């Protein structure tokens, strides 16, 4: 824990303890400010290390790689995981239910799912990144290459030589 360097800092520290947690401002690339609890912001390893390094908590954190829509959704996840307890079986079940609904909604809007995945990666939110990458992985599992290409709009651009190699692999695998 960083210790305050003056009376004002000490007072601020005391105030934080009183209110339970300080508030942190995150700003999207469109300049929109989101105020979140520190517990919520600490879900992001990127922000956590900046806060712990005594960084610019007061000025807030600009996030030039994340748009407002994505940030709002990411914060929804962080609030749930950062602000709520997960000690009892019921609490953990509630959190698991939240995750399930959260990812089901994202899965229905693939482009948004990719945005959230990118943001989770950039902000190092481990739980959210695991959730979204697992969701994409589940989409790939058990599909033929052609089905995967259709599902993700991948253009087939392999050369004739590549195709020969693949044919050879296919006879073995």
């Amino acid at each position, binding site marked *: 824990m960083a210790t305050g360097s003056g009376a004002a800092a000490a007072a601020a520290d005391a105030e934080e303890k009183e209110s339970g947690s300080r508030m942190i401002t995150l700003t999207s690339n469109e300049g929109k400010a989101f105020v979140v609890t520190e517990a919520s912001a600490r879900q992001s390893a990127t922000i956590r290390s900046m806060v712990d390094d005594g960084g610019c908590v007061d000025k807030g954190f600009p996030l030039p790689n994340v748009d407002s829509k994505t940030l709002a959704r990411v914060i929804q996840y962080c609030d749930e995981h950062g602000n709520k307890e997960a000690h009892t079986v019921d609490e953990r079940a509630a959190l698991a239910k939240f995750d399930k609904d959260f990812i089901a909604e994202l899965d229905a809007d693939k482009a948004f799912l990719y945005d959230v995945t990118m943001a989770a990666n950039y902000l190092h939110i481990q739980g959210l990144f695991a959730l979204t*990458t697992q969701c994409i992985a589940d989409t790939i599992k058990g599909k033929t290459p052609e089905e995967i290409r259709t599902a993700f709009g991948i253009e087939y651009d392999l050369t004739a030589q590549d195709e020969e190699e693949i044919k050879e692999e296919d006879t073995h695998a």
Partner: protein
Amino acid sequence: MQSNSIQSYDQGRFNTLPDDILLSILERVDMRTVLRTSVLSTRWKHLPLLLSDVDLDVDEFIHQNSSMSAHEAMAVLIKLMSSLFGSPQNESIIKKLNLSFYLLTDLETSLKFLFNIGELVCNAIDSGKVKSVELTITTEKRRFKLTDLMSGASNIWIEYEGKELRTALNKITKLLLHGIYVKFNLLWTLVLLESAPSVKIFGVKVWNHACDEGTENRKQLSERRNDLWDAAQLDGSIHYLQLERLEFGGFNQIIREHLDFIRAVIERAPNLKSVILEDRDPCEDCEAMDNPIYPSISMFPQNNDEKSTIVKQLKAGMNRPVEIIFC
């Protein structure tokens, strides 16, 4: 029309994900799926070669394609390994390679596979392509086969193949042998350990099911013995210098040979730190039978008295601080 273009725009975004995210996704699917993605497009073709954590399990191939024989699965595994390690333009590094495969009844083929695998792994480690290897030789599904192989051909293994075997196993750091039939002498596993001088973690798991009594497998098993082995036959000059941890699954305190085996390892492993003893895996069918091979009561040390007796027996006459852990 409009919705179509939005759709393809949305889908196309998938391709804008950076490699490291796509690799995180690939690390969450099995190797067969990974291979399927490698034929998607030029970009995807090279992604499997960039994986840093590779898990190759023969069981998985068979599980997904039940018509595949163990022999075919082994051939696929080897082909996969050579394409993963062999690509000259690819400079990525595999930090962790998990390799799990069978030994087959057909001795000649099995040795051929083992040497192929050993050679591929050695070359990959020598070239810096692979940093760490975990090896599991499993006989769980066809559980009598490893002992089959060993009891039928102990001489071949030692006299003719010893040197080659050593090359094959040279760089292995973790060696697990699971599914060893309880009535077989365990000392032969030490021949494998002798041939694998880099092993830090060595594990054996003894199989003692009684629920298939009277079946064809069991008949074949009881006809085979491997009495050829005793501790005196082992090369006394060989020491397992790297060995730090011995894991013994299916430990039975009334089987003298289990104690002898563990002692033999402790004596030859001057840097051994811990011995982990585990009870057998529970099996309801066996428990219902109350057979001497699988008595309904576990023969694993239960109380502190029994445990300290075992510890004393294992460490008698030894002054090295080896920790004996009961799980």
